[in-house]
Structure formats: structure tokens, C-alpha cells
């Protein structure tokens, strides 16, 4: 859509307990993400309290990745964390400028 190369990628968003942050980020890079953006968040979901209330608020992790990596991340997070932790994962489309960097 512009003079610059724009690549269609997937934006994977994970909102979860702060306590999982370090582990999740390491895994993300292992699975092929080239970077990520973190924001502090709070929220309400199906679970009640969590330890992270004391660890500070939730964390929101966003990573622009290829379709394949997105799939791997989704599968990993679902397998490793869905059962016991407060976590939500969703995937959106995004047109990324200079996107080849992130594949």
C-alpha cells in the first residue's frame, strides 16, 4: 500500500500473569519470533485471583511473526499454560512495513 515493502504478517497477542513473562518471552524467541512488545495491563477473565496481583499487574505481549511461527506459539501457549494459568491468546492480521525483518 505504500512505497515501502509491506509484508502481511500475524500479530499474536498474549495477555497473562506477570509471573509467566520471563518464561514466555524466552519461548517466543525459541519458536522463531524476532522481537516483541510488552505493555502492562490488568484485566478480568474467568479465573479469580492470581499470585500476580502481588507481582504487579498482568502483562500483554505482542509479537509480529510469520503464519507458521504464530501457529507454533499458539500451540505452545495452549499446551503449557492454558490449564493452570490465567492466559488469553489471539491472532490478528497486520501489514508490516519492512516486514521481511520479522520473518
Amino acid at each position: 500500500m505504500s512505497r515501502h515493502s509491506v509484508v502481511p504478517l500475524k500479530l499474536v497477542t498474549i495477555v497473562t500473569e506477570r509471573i509467566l513473562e520471563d518464561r514466555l518471552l524466552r519461548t517466543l524467541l525459541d519458536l522463531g519470533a524476532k522481537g516483541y512488545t510488552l505493555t502492562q495491563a490488568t484485566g478480568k477473565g474467568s479465573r479469580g485471583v492470581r499470585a500476580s496481583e502481588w507481582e504487579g499487574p498482568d502483562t500483554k505481549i505482542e509479537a509480529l511473526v510469520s503464519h507458521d511461527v504464530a501457529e507454533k506459539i499458539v500451540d505452545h501457549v495452549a499446551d503449557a499454560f492454558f490449564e493452570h494459568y490465567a492466559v488469553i491468546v489471539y491472532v490478528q492480521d497486520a501489514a508490516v512495513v519492512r516486514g521481511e525483518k520479522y520473518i
Partner: protein
Amino acid sequence: MKRIAYDVRFRAVLYTRYPFTMDNLEVLAANLLSPVILAFVLGVVASLVRSDLKLPAALYNGLSIYLLLAIGLKGGVELSRTPLSVFAGPAMLTLLLGLLTPVFAYNILRRLGRMDRVNSAAIAAHYGSVSAVTFIVAITFGTMTGREPEGFMPALVAILEVPAIVVALMIAFMRDRRAGSWQDALHEVLSGRSVVLLVGGLLIGTLVGPKGFEPVAPFFKSGFQGALMLFLLEMGIVAASRLRDLREVGFFLIAFGILVPILHGTLTIWLAQFTGLTVAGAAVLAAMVSSASYIAAPAAVRIALPEANPTFYLTGALGITFPFNVTLGIPLYYFLAEWILG
């Protein structure tokens, strides 16, 4: 009412031997009417009337760093002038209690409470470890009523914090293969900010000694009580939000959250007589042992035992035991210590 604190210092020593007299109630009132406890109550009230009052997370966090470092430093300075022979007995008693109390708590929860293994171990980790704020309030209460505990008490907090968590997690891991990670949890608790600040503060305090501590003393000493007051204001707000979960946790856990601290506290005081601790020292140690961790333990348990229900352990530690201890528990431990050791 405001004149109560007035001559408490004198009466406290004199009258605590005669329980249930008017004067003992005054000592209790002296605790309930201290600014620090009233700030806690104000926090509870603010939360109940749905006020927007709330310490910013950064400030709350900063205050906890300040308080932990301050007690570490002051403990270290005192430790630097305490002969090992004086410190050894209390230190060993503390370690012993850190190993035993999670086992007690676990068995009470399993046998009397018929709770499952994982949740029992999770709760036991909390009740075996220690709440630094309860410790500080206990020290404050002693000072306020003219009974100065030993200066090295903060070193005992550091000793008490970790072992119980390790013991409780070991119990859980011995029985099944777990989802959580044992090493991650151990790292979490050892490198957690409360241990780093307490132990770091102790080391710094020991190294610099009383002289070296002087330039930073105004910051860490004269501001301490006021900072604690602000901190308890926020604790009140958080504890009140826990109160809403009381129905969920059931009657057994409520009773557990009051009686087990009394049990642990009494045991502590009884054993303290063999260690040379003063009355105030024994009372403060009792408050520590009876208290339930709500910073180090939840973080470790969340990682190692993710299937345990946080509502149980957080509501117990924060919604029941903490308020009980800072209002009624601490005066009770002082009274018991006076009675048994006095």
C-alpha cells in the same frame, strides 16, 4: 480514648501479668489505636465504600523495597555488635520452626481439613514462611509499649523466609509428578526481591556497622513508621478485596487462619525460653512464626504448584491471618510471652 497510649509504656510492664483486667484491654486498645493499625482500617473502609483511593503500584512497590531494605540494614547493624553466642540459639530455633511449621500446617489441612495434597502443600508453604509486615508491626507494638526486642530480629526474618517454602514444595513434589517447575520456584524464592533485600540489607548493615550506618540513618529510621503507615493503608485496601472471597474459602480455612497462628505462636514462645530470648524477642518471633507469607510464597507456589487455587492461600494469608495478627494476635503473643517468660 486518645489518652490511652499515654501511660501504656508503664502499665504494659506492670499489668500484663493480670489478664482480662481493664488494663490489659487498654494495652490491646493501644495496639488497635496506633496510627499504623488505624491506617490499615482506613484502607479497609476506603475499599468497602468503593473509594478511588489507591496507592499507585509504583509507590507501593517502592515502599516495600524501602521497608525490607530498612529492616535488613538495621538488623545487620545490630548483628555486627551481637556476639555469636547470643545469636546462635534464637537462630537455630527459627530454623527449626521454619522446618516444622509447614509440616504441622500440612497435616492439619490434610487430616482435619480433608483438603487435597496440592492445596495443602500450597497453604503450608505460606504459613511456614513469614510476613515481613507482621514482623514490623510486632516490633512497633513492642517499642510503643516500652518493650524493645533484640536488635538482631530481622536476621531471623531472613532465616525464616525460605526453608518452609522449600519443605512444603518438597512434600508436594514427593507425592506426584508435578506440572510446575521445582527449580524455577526455588530460583524465584531465592532471587525474589524480599530475600535479596533482607539478606543484602543484613550484609550491608553488618559490613558498615553503626558508624557507617549513621549518614543513611535519618532516611531509614525516622521515616520508617510513617512509610509503614502508608503501606498499611494500601494493605487494608488489598485485604478488604480478599475479604470478599471469604465465602468461597469456607469455614475451615477461616478457623485455620486464626487458630494455627495461635498454635504456632504459642509453640514458639514455649520453645523460646530455652534460647535466652527476652520477652519482647519471644513475642516478636511468635508473631513472625505465626504469620503467613504473602510475597515470597505466592510467587514460588504459583510457579511450582500452578494447580493450587490462589484464592485459598491468598485469602488465608492476607484476608484472615494478617488482619488477625496485626490487631489481636500481636498483643496476645506479648501477653503469652510475658506470662511464660516474664
